[in-house]
């Protein structure tokens, strides 16, 4: 009779294990479907993006069942084996282990993980592989702005505060910093790399045929203005890019305004618009009632520029270290506006600020 009950118990345990596996498979399928249905990523604006996103899906498909099986197993045990009235003094089965099972759950995860690593290596190798016809862009970070340099025809670099790129173009970024660590990141491209003092770091991005404007983000904590170290990356048609670069080289484009063409045509840039569209924008750090901004990183301009003359305001923009108001630290405001804004833009901004802080 003992033998028979042991056999019954063995059969019951096997049945229960099959139930767990069955529930786990169903829940895993539901979980995978749900995981894949979630809209995880921002738009794909580079070839690397589609590869990384695909790898993410593979990782989801592999890892969701692991998560789901643990949940199902725990819930099943709580359901089947929780103490019932009358079992207060009862113990479980004195099972100390099972070598075969332990080998299986060591070996299978090892194999799966190594396979994942191989897949990751293949993708990594591919996205970092050199491509033909690569365009060079030098990216320089400083507290708290990025400046993008394009090689000009006469060997002189063309500076911009917006990252313009043509479509279907492989771009090699050489990333540098003037002060502390920053991290050059365009989420839509997926790639990022630290800007390291004393070094030049490199990443490659290949744009697709998609045009659009995407944020450039600093991803490494770099001080007070870290959160506002945001600029734009614009991917445009190659012809448009060439025009822009040529104009930029001549120094007569209204770079930094929301709509470069409109601003270029109108001739005189709009100071109020520049206040919020210059990159990094004035309004990202400063409060100015007329422009409707409320940031508190830099001085409240309604107060600090109250009644100041044109000369003072101009110097405060192009040479921010010259006179730092009490209570604020030097080195927070980017010193590169002189370089990345056109003279007529600075004029327009100064005129605007003089006007609204009278």
């Amino acid at each position, binding site marked *: 009779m003992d033998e028979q009950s042991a056999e019954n118990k063995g059969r019951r345990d096997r049945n229960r294990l099959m139930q767990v596996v069955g529930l786990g498979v169903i829940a895993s399928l539901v979980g995978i479907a749900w995981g894949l249905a979630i809209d995880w990523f921002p738009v794909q604006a580079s070839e690397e993006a589609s590869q990384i996103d695909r790898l993410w899906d593979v990782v989801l498909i592999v890892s969701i069942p692991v998560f789901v099986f643990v949940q199902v197993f725990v819930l099943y045990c709580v359901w089947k084996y929780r103490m019932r009235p009358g079992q207060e003094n009862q113990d479980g089965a004195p099972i100390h282990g099972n070598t075969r099972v332990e080998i299986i759950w060591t070996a299978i995860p090892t194999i799966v993980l190594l396979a994942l690593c191989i897949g990751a290596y293949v993708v990594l190798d591919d996205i970092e592989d050199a491509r033909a016809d690569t365009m060079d862009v030098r990216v320089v970070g400083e507290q708290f702005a990025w400046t993008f340099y394009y090689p000009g025809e006469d060997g002189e670099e063309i500076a911009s505060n917006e990252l313009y790129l043509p479509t279907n173009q492989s771009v090699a970024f050489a990333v540098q910093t003037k002060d502390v660590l920053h991290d050059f990141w365009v989420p839509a491209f*997926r790639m990022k790399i630290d800007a390291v003092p004393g070094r030049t770091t490199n990443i490659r991005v290949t744009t697709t045929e998609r045009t659009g404007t995407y944020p450039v983000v600093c991803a490494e904590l770099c001080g007070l203005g870290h959160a506002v170290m945001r600029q734009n990356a614009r991917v445009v048609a190659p012809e448009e890019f060439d025009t822009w670069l040529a104009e930029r080289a001549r120094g007569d484009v209204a770079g930094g305004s929301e709509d470069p063409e409109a601003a270029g045509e109108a001739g005189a840039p709009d100071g109020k618009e520049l206040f919020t569209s210059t990159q990094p924008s004035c309004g990202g750090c400063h409060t100015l009632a007329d422009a409707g901004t409320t940031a508190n990183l830099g001085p409240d301009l309604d107060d600090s520029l109250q009644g100041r003359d044109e000369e003072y305001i101009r110097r405060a923009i192009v040479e921010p270290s010259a006179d730092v108001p009490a209570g604020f630290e030097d080195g927070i405001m980017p010193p590169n506006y002189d370089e990345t804004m056109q003279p007529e833009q600075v004029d327009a901004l100064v005129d605007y600020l003089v006007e609204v802080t009278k």
Partner: protein
Amino acid sequence: MAAKLRAPGWYRAIALVIVGVGFAAALDVLIRAGYGYEPVVDGQAIMLVALIAVPFFFLGGMGTFDYWFYYASGRPTRPEDHSSHGAHSWKDYFRVNTDHKVIGIQYVVTSFFFMLVGGLLAMLVRAELAAPGAQFVDPNTYNGLFSVHASLMIFLFIIPVFAGLANYVLPLMIGAPDMAFPRLNALSFWMLPVAGTMMTLSFFAPGGSFATGWTAYAPLSTEVPVGQMFFSIGVQFAGASSIATALNFLVTIITMRAPGMSFWRMPLLVWANFATSLLVVIATPFIAASQFFVLLDWALGFNFFDVENGGDVLMYQHVFWFYSHPAVYIMMLPGFGIISEVLSVKSRKPIFGYRMMAFSLLAIVLLGFTVWAHHMFVSGMQPWIRVPMMITTAIIAVPTGIKIFSWLATMWRGVLRVDTPMLFALGFLTMFVLGGISGVVLAIIPIDIYVSDTYFVVAHIHYVLYGGSVLTIYAGVYYWFPKMTGRMFNETLGKVHFWLTFVSFNATFAPMHLIGVQGMPRRVADYAEQFATWNLVISLSSFVLGLSTLVFVYNMVSSWRGGARAGDNPWRALTLEWQVSSPPPIFNFDSVPTVVGGPYEYGKAGAVHGVFRPAGREAEAIQADEAEKRPAAVTAHGSGTRE
């Protein structure tokens, strides 16, 4: 009054702190005058010297060095009359005490105090992040809030609370009367409030608190205001405390086990702390070094990280992560030990694959030192090192997986007591696995390039440290509360605490995975409009999570004061700490226990882990006796089955 100032304690400590400030000021003024620096009296320089010197005056005043000073000066040391053992009123917890049980409680309560402080800072962070744009704090304060939050939670809560729990139960579990070095143990504890106070007070430093994250990456950390030094120096005290405690655990475990307590009969909590202590002793000096570099660069212009003077920035990150990755295991392995105890007792079953559980701990220790550069995949270091680091990082999931599967198998065919400690253990099992999986995801280099420095990382670390470590801490505190206090906690409030924590924890941290992958960077006070909805949900959930902690605090305080008497062994556990009274006698065991079997022989009628001989027998006699009887005892109780 004079007698009070001479005797060790708070009066002498406060007096010596004043002396210490004077000493720091005099030393600084003398040196500056000698070198002819202007101004001779420099407030920040004095503050910096005081930060280093005053803690020693404080510790001396409290009396942590008294015995050694007497000994070193050749004066008669006061014979150990054990008068400092045991706590007879709440005031005894505010004095230097060499009893490991008192120190254990001092550790746990102090850590939870700093956990509440750190939690409050997290609430402020979430209040600021509830909507895009600036809410309550300026960016400098915001950066300080999350930096101090992380530093307190890591160095003043998770690491020391585990040391505290182990301090209390580990000597009891191995049948020892105390830790190997009780006076060092007391010193280890008293360095903690020093470190915690320093980090917390940094908010009052000129220029605000340290605001470069708990990672304190150079060269930002060498260029910011003096608040940064409160971290650099505070970490030295927290680190020294951990190293001393770890040495103490190692020596205690190696030399003070009861007769018959072989390594393969040690409860897994003891194994876990053995493994953790190895990690602490080997790794912690590296963070001490990294912060000394920052200190020397900041204060004395050493140029370790100044590239214009031959410094190297990546060096900081390598040294820092060589500690700080193993630190994640320092914050996790003791929790693994707690879960093994709770799951085995509450499932009424032996731990499945006990030896593999111990070996996997050692495997994690070993592999833990080979993965640090996975924090640096986008740091600009040499590219080739990334692939080996990815492989080791993925492989470290194997021993971790072995532990999870073994815990699951331990529950299979058990008789599960699903009470508060067990609920937290199960909560750990289900949540930690997600933290482990997101860890593997982060090891995959192409994905890491995208998600590093985003909220995905914030989600990952909180699933590991909250869903992992903190839930095990709760499980452990509830599990040993009856032993520590002799009282039973309120089970209903315990369950309320669990469900509030479990639900609001997930509502807080799960959405962070999504917003991270959608592109929200971490460590920002302001963010794009598209993340506003999720951030509001996260902030509201986090406030519930914060409030759930108060249920726990109320339960602990009220149960300690007036809970029902717990009895010596309310869980019917076999390990040695439950075989003595609650709370245990001053020297733990009235007679030396002899260990005769494994720690988890549940399911065998009459099985015992240790036996007690009548009091008064000589230790040698017991040992001789035990050597004779042990094989018989093992056979009598069976060694269990491996199916």
